[in-house]
């Protein structure tokens, strides 16, 4: 039990039930899972990625490479959870991952023995396999590798929790709630700016929280917090990570709303994704401590010094009794002194020969043994550090004198500090190397919307941290036009040497000959050793990107937060360059991993995309229709009677239309109002056929091309008035045709006085088709529907009951047919009226499948034929094109390949046999070998009840000349070959007597 009896920022009145591997941990409100593990003397927390080496808690924050666990169970199970950032809650259940059969006896740890063989790039050099033209050998090996890799186990269950997205706007976004960020928020808030302050921790304070309770920082913190709370224009988001900086001053944040509870409360969301649009942002993200490199620096019990201090002061956990502190800078001295005062036996080995006197004094006053010019050569112990070999070192960190072994159950190390520049770097900016501060820092550019401050900007003292934060806050507020008085910065508090660095560039301890005393790691999760960097160098993988990818350093879940600088430093050493000359890799979002669910918000399941419903939709649902997707729309596919399947239903429905009368909901057709004095001219330009002569009350079928001369869409357009046309498009292309029309009218054809407006939503539409359609319609309308008064391709206004509708006489099915356009709100009423009146005429509704059968019988083209690669001629529509006028695509449609007489053109097929063909089958000459791309392909198929046979629409090379020929229809993936006779695609009533009757 390592919990101290007093101190810390935990609430000892609120004990929590927390378990790891079934073992109860002593936890209180305010703990993290990691602090509870340490308090409960859990030294083995996980296993590394490659060698499955034992790993303990290493850090106290987001950079944690080792203590990754499975959190929660069942459908709330979550893998790869960092114990260090997991707030303890009552009922927390966690287990080990990446270990089998157990954490302590992990078979995968055998890899450790093989590690010399598993060196950098070993995959690339082995498993190539003995067999040419076969990948089997590798895939067999790969199966084992995949099982061993991968860290945590994912659940396959659906997530029960809710997520939410929220847009926010502010003048100043402050990222980080430590001394710099608090000062920035205070300044901007006082100046009157709208401020959002985000902090990833569950408490404000940053590094101040790692000071002992009651230290001067506490008073400073509570004063600043109090004032911030009093400013209504400052919004504080705790448990919130700014994960990404994007274009336009947009930042992505994830707020963990209820991850600190066992389950979200009723109605509560789990996480909230904030999209913040900020005028300016202040980057006050602090710095991360770097490890030192020595043999065994990954052993459980080796930790970052700052983390040890955090566990001591914030969580009242003494992580070891016998502490060896290794450092190359001043910050560890506070840690040493505080550990000593807490009762630990502390030895501090400083790689520097001459540390500053004030730091030395603080350590010595606290009873710490300080060994200057000393380093740790090796940590000893397998699943827990037991001792260390220390040595006097020269100015390069090499052993220079006799080594000795000292007992230690904790080695705390500080290799200096790296500013957290991730968000700044994400905006595709390269940080610069500051040789004095020994780290990469952001450049200061006064105009940029993201400004660094504090230790994120390598501020050297607390005074500087506060001043920078405050000034960046004022500047950001002023940039947004806030003019309020910001006053003076909160006066700095008295702080120990923790805030001063005086860092030495030495980061590794080696033997006198420059070699290491064992395995020494730069990347702790991916098990990248210093020797791997050396090997990469030997093999020529010397650029930072090659180094990273070849050794995988920096590619683990911590994304190199700990490893990058040490790896770079080694490569710089090997190449004889400075660190900045070697360069650095690009930081990419997210700063820390974010849940996919959070970013998705409500857009999942049926809300993945919106759904579009016809005004008559609910009638179909209430009357047993089977629905099908058509883009965003739902459409009736067929209306099964009794236990009919699709095949039986559509054949019955299609036959019924030809014999009696049927009706179908065609509200999904695209409808565009084309209005204005130049409307006819506009239509004349976008359609291939002529429109200048269309009289009011008439409608005409038209086709339009893309700019490149291929067919884009077809449909009928009616002239309703002098300047009013009503265009219909296919369901699929409605939006495209509208946007294309708007583009032409607003860019190239600004002189045309035309407006195009979607009226798809305004009108419900019903197609009534079949020999009895006129009689039925007559029974419910006041209009004269006689052949003389309303011939085919004419329009009339009418009433059905008291609803004013428009009746377009036109046919897609080849039958006597009408399309009835009804204001949407009356759509269902009119449908029901027709349905009721239709009982006397044996009316049946039909769905899209029967509609398809009818149009195929008639040889009308639709989506499968207008598939983006077919020309007017291919579709048998060449006759439509006017030669008297230019139109969209009229020039490019004449390119040689588009006019090649040998192109596949639309034909009909009569399929032999009972089964029918499948769309997508290929056509071959009857006796030719079935290979290559074929002579054509089948686009649409149906059983034709009218003809009593299976038919198809297809494209066949030079097809018009091949009527009567027998071709082979091959469906390779269905394992079926059929014979078919090539016929005209106008299968049924080619003269159109029925539709014109």
């Amino acid at each position: 039990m390592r919990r101290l009896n007093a101190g810390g920022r935990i609430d000892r009145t609120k004990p929590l039930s927390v378990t790891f591997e079934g073992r109860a941990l002593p936890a209180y409100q305010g703990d993290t899972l990691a602090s509870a593990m340490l308090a409960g003397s859990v030294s083995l927390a996980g296993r590394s990625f490659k060698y499955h080496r034992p790993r303990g808690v290493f850090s106290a924050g987001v950079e944690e490479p080792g203590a990754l666990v499975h959190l929660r169970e069942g459908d709330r199970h979550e893998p790869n959870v960092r114990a260090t950032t997991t707030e303890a809650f009552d009922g927390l259940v966690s287990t080990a991952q990446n270990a089998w059969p157990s954490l302590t006896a992990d078979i995968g740890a055998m890899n450790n023995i093989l590690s010399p063989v598993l060196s950098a790039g070993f995959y690339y050099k082995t498993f190539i396999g003995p067999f040419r033209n076969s990948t089997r050998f590798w895939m067999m090996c790969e199966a084992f590798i995949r099982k061993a890799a991968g860290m945590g186990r994912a659940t396959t269950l659906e997530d029960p929790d809710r997520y939410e997205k929220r847009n926010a706007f502010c003048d100043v976004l402050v990222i980080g709630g430590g001394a710099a960020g608090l000062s920035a928020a205070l300044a901007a808030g006082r100046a009157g700016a709208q401020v959002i302050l985000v902090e990833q921790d569950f408490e404000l304070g940053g590094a101040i929280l790692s000071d002992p309770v009651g230290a001067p920082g506490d008073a400073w913190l509570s004063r600043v917090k109090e004032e911030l709370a009093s400013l209504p224009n400052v919004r504080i988001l705790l448990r919130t990570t700014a994960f990404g900086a994007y274009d336009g001053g947009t930042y992505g944040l994830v707020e963990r709303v209820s991850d600190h509870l066992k389950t979200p409360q009723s109605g509560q969301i789990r996480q909230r994704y904030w999209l913040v649009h900020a005028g300016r942002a202040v980057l006050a993200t602090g710095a991360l401590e770097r490890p030192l490199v020595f043999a065994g620096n990954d052993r459980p019990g080796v930790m970052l010094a700052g983390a040890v201090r955090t566990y001591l002061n914030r969580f009242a956990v003494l992580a070891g009794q016998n502490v060896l502190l290794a450092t190359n800078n001043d910050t560890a001295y506070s840690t040493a002194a505080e550990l000593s005062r807490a009762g630990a036996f502390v030895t501090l080995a400083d790689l520097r020969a001459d540390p500053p006197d004030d730091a030395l004094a603080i350590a010595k006053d606290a009873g710490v043994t300080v060994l200057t010019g000393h380093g740790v050569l090796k940590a000893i112990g397998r699943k827990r550090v037991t001792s260390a070999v220390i040595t006097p070192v020269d100015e390069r960190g090499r052993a220079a004198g006799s080594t000795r072994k000292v007992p230690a159950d904790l080695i705390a190390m500080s290799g200096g500090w790296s500013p957290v520049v991730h968000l700044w770097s994400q905006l595709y900016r390269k940080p610069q190397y500051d040789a004095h501060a020994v780290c990469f820092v952001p450049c200061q550019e006064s105009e940029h919307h993201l400004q660094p401050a504090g230790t994120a900007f390598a501020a050297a003292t607390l005074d500087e941290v506060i001043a920078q934060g405050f000034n960046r806050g004022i500047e950001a507020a002023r940039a947004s036009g806030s003019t309020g008085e910001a006053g003076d910065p909160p006066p700095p508090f008295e702080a120990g040497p923790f805030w001063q660095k005086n860092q030495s560039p030495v980061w590794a301890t080696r033997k006198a000959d420059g070699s290491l005393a064992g395995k020494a790691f730069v990347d702790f999760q991916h098990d990248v050793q210093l020797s791997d960097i050396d090997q990469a160098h030997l093999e020529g993988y010397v650029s930072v990107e090659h180094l990273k990818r070849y050794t995988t350093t920096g590619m683990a879940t911590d994304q190199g937060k700990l490893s990058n600088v040490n790896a770079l430093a080694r490569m710089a050493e090997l190449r004889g360059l400075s660190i900045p000359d070697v360069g650095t890799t690009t930081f990419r979002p997210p700063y820390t991993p974010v849940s996919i669910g959070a970013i998705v918000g409500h857009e999942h399941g049926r809300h993945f995309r919106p759904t579009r419903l016809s005004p008559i939709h609910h009638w179909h649902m209430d009357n047993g229709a089977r629905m099908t997707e058509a883009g965003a729309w739902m459409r009736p596919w067929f209306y099964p009677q009794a236990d009919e399947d699709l095949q039986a239903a559509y054949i019955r429905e299609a036959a019924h239309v030809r014999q009696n009368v049927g009706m179908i909901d065609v509200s999904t057709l695209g409808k565009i109002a084309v209005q204005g004095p130049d409307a006819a001219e506009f239509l004349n330009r976008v359609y291939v056929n002529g429109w200048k002569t269309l009289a009011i009350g008439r409608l005409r079928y038209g086709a339009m091309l893309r700019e490149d001369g291929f067919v884009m869409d077809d449909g009928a357009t009616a002239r309703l008035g002098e300047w009013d046309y009503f265009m219909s498009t296919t369901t699929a292309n409605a939006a495209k045709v509208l946007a294309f029309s708007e583009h032409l009218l607003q860019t190239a054809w600004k002189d045309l006085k035309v407006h195009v407006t979607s009226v798809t939503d305004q009108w419900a539409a019903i197609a009534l088709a079949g020999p009895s359609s006129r009689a039925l319609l007559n029974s419910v309308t006041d209009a004269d529907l006689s052949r003389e008064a309303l011939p085919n391709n004419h329009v009339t206004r009418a009433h059905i009951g008291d609803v004013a509708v428009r009746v377009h006489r036109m046919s897609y099915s080849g039958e006597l047919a009408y399309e009835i356009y009804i204001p949407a709100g009356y759509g269902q009423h009119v449908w029901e009226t027709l349905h009721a009146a239709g009982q006397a005429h044996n009316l049946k509704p039909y769905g899209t499948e029967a509609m398809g059968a009818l149009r195929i019988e008639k040889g009308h083209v639709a989506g499968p034929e207008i598939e983006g690669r077919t020309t007017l001629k291919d579709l048998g529509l060449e006759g439509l094109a006017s030669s008297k006028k230019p139109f969209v695509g009229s020039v490019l449609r004449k390119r040689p390949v588009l006019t090649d007489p040998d192109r596949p053109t639309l034909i009909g097929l009569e399929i032999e046999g009972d089964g029918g063909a499948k769309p997508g089958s290929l056509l071959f000459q009857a006796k030719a070998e079935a290979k290559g791309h074929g002579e054509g392909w089948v686009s649409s198929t149906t059983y034709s009840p009218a003809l009593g046979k299976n038919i198809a629409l297809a494209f066949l090379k030079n097809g018009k000349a091949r009527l009567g020929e027998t071709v082979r229809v091959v469906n390779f993936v269905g394992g079926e070959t059929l014979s078919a006779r090539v016929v005209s695609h106008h299968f049924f009533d080619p003269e159109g007597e029925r539709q014109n009757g």
Partner: protein
Amino acid sequence: MAEVLSALSKKLVSGHYGPAGDAGIRLSGRRLRGLWQLAGWANFETAAASALEALGLSTIGTFQSAQATQIACAWRIAPDKLLVESAHDLGAFNSQDLAVLNLSHAREAIILSGPAARDLLSQLIAIDVSPAAFRRGAFLQTGIHHVGVLIHCVEETDFEILVPTTWAESGWEVLLENALPFGLEVHSNA
């Protein structure tokens, strides 16, 4: 008389949804009095003058601000387009210079109100809807869940959302889904 069937007829079911307690959000629907688009060209304002006069309006107004009179509410939705809610039949004003289009059935009006209404909007649209930025009388054309809508701030916490009819039910469900955590009351009649 045939009744206009709202596209939300299946959705406007009165009741309280989400956590118990005071509802942060109230949702209901409203039947539009009639909706018209007036569109013109270079001389749009002149061409629309008599129609505007009939509606009690003196100008075509400015972008993003609604003009409301006793008998109409007008939104300037584009430089040369006005969307007007009015019971008047404006079809008579159709001319060579003014294209009038009846859209009365093309939109459903969803009424969103309650203390959390602005919070809900901030979940659905990436526009500043704070009271200072989106004031009474202002309107926005934007997208909710990938569908173009018009949102009119009628009162401090009352908003009308004009949704294309065929998307209305889907849009309603998304509103409902996001409103649930606030506590939600649905009123079948406004």
